[in-house]
């Protein structure tokens, strides 16, 4: 109890050596994912496993043997100072980068080497750190692109307006409108997305990602550039998304924001995992404090 549960990188090297009971204070769910080697978790509880992932760009090691697991229905934070490898990790998970070594499993299936659109249709949706909408399409059209991910309308049925086209177009439109309402920008549906305000664009990006019907929604610094009030609204939205049954992975470097909403957090620094645990645990971890304040780890 006096020693907060933290997994250090040394421990990861020998996963079986980690005492399971160290996680006990945070509850049994915690123990499963944190204390047990993630590769051995066979529960239906685990949604996504990042297993010993290393990613090198030439000589630069962007991710160094990173392992963690996300559980269904939680809001999971991936934090770290700038350049820690958060977005790289994210990109590896969504198929933008292929890990140099290690495995990533989503609902028990490896997604390494899968195409980006396959991963999306498999149930992982994401937003981008710097908003990447389709600027000349309307807000509604943007969301409909996401909704199209699960549509089966072929070029032929679109060309000849076959029944499937009408049916999917109608349901896709209705669902997209509903999502715009969900994120609170339904009144802007017909507006070209470049004309939306920054905050609206961020919300639109979330709606577009939700339209792909994800099991896991990955948000890459969704609060960047937000003022405190907007951040509060966003946190409420993230909770609302979680309450619909979607697991949320949140990347942030604003500690305060993450602390308020996440169930569990992994902290990266220089591509290595330096801590994992509940927000309270992570906050008190000397390594995390050192990483954020720049104090050498052994001095802390």
């Amino acid at each position, binding site marked *: 109890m006096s020693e907060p549960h933290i997994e250090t990188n040394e421990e990861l090297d020998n996963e079986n050596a980690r005492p399971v009971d160290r996680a006990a204070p945070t509850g049994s769910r915690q123990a499963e994912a944190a204390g047990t080697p993630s590769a051995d978790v066979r529960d239906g509880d685990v949604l996504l496993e990042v297993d010993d992932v290393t990613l090198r760009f030439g000589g630069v090691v962007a991710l160094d043997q990173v392992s963690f697991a996300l559980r269904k229905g939680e809001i999971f934070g991936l934090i770290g100072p700038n350049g820690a490898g958060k977005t790289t990790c994210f990109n590896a998970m*969504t198929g*933008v980068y292929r890990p140099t070594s290690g495995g990533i499993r989503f609902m028990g299936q490896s997604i390494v080497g899968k*195409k*980006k*659109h396959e991963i*999306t*249709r498999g149930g992982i*949706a*994401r937003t*981008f750190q710097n908003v*990447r*909408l*389709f*600027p*000349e*399409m309307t807000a509604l*059209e943007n969301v*409909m*692109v*996401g909704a*199209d*991910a*699960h*549509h089966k*309308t072929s*070029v032929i049925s*679109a*060309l*000849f*307006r076959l029944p499937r*086209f009408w049916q*999917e*177009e109608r349901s*896709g439109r209705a669902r997209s409108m509903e999502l715009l309402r969900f994120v609170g920008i339904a009144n802007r549906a017909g507006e*070209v997305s*470049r*004309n939306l305000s920054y905050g609206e664009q961020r919300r639109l990006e979330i709606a*577009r*990602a939700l339209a*792909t019907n994800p099991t896991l929604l990955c948000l890459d610094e969704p609060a960047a550039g937000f003022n405190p009030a907007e951040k509060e609204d966003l946190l409420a939205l993230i909770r609302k998304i979680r309450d619909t049954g979607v697991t949320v992975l949140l990347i942030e470097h604003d500690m305060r924001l993450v602390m308020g909403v996440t169930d569990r957090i992994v902290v990266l620094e220089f591509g290595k995992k330096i801590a994992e645990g509940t927000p309270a645990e992570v906050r008190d971890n000397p390594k995390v404090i050192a990483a954020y304040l720049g104090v050498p780890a052994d001095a802390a």
Partner: protein
Amino acid sequence: MTEVAVTSEKPPAPKKQASRGGGGVRGWFGRQPVWVRAVVVLAATAAAFLLPYVGDVPVIGPQIVTNGVDWTSALFNMSYYVLLALGLNVVVGYAGLLDLGYVGFFAVGAYGTALLTSPDSILYSHTGWAWLAAAPFALALTMLAGLILGWPTLRLRGDYLAIVTLGFAEIIRIVATSTDTLRGDRGFTSIPHPPGSYSDGSPIFGVRDATPYFWLGLVVIILVILGVRNLDRSRVGRSWLAIREDEEAAEVMGVRTTKYKLWAFAIGAFIGGLGGVMFAGEQSFINSQTFVLQFSILVLAGVVMGGSGNIAGAILGGALISYIPDRLRGISFGGTDLYEYRFALFGIVIIVIMILRPQGLIPSRRRAMELKDREKEVAPSE
């Protein structure tokens, strides 16, 4: 009495405007109820079918008609240029794939027809194929050519793609010039005309009057417009736009970018091939000199000038790139035919349009809003 006359004349006025297009008219058109729009579209279509007789209209008629070129032939030329512009608009305007070798598909369509039908072809045996029978095969061939160009260039964008497509068109032209089977400059003769004859036995599609070819072209254009419009307003069109706007984001949102880029190439090629098949059927003769690079550039200029990513713009642009040079023919200026200066004049026209209306003559709805938005942004600082 005079009042009656005025009111009866009123309705046609906006119709004329609509067929000419323009920003304000476009907005007006969008706000009208369905039946008004239907009437306008029908009227525009009817007007298009009556174009061969425009020379008979007093005062205005003679100004419109081309003097140096047979008017109906000029109209037919316009029809296949419009077709090409519509096809290129799918590739460049919708999917954002800069294709500088679009003439290649036009050539494949024409050569496909010639190979199957012309007595000069090695495939010819005694009777030869009818034009209509050859058309589907020629079109299948162009779609295949589209895929052959599309497949290796999937990873390329912008300038790099443009260079490869440029090379593609040149390859086709050079192969046509130097391969014995494709007969180079000698070309293919006696390519059959489209089928059909009048009650007196004379063929509808003859050599003297190009009017039926123009009408055939119009019918094909209308079908292509309907098809492209259906695709644009569907998942397919959204996928194309998404790819154009941000390819990676599109893929991350579940768009099969490979599939839709290949479809864009194939559909663009198909429409270009249609132009080629019609061209071969009307001209009855093609050789490798027909399919020069300028052709591709001209059609691209038409698409950009008319308003990229927009069907009405492509139609207007395609029609203009064909009409302007034909209209210049036969007008002499300082002893030379203005036709000789067509590319210079054309260049000037394009530069002027691009300065005054960078979004094209009939901008796409989205482009127009984007530019309006920029104006708003500029306004407060002034």
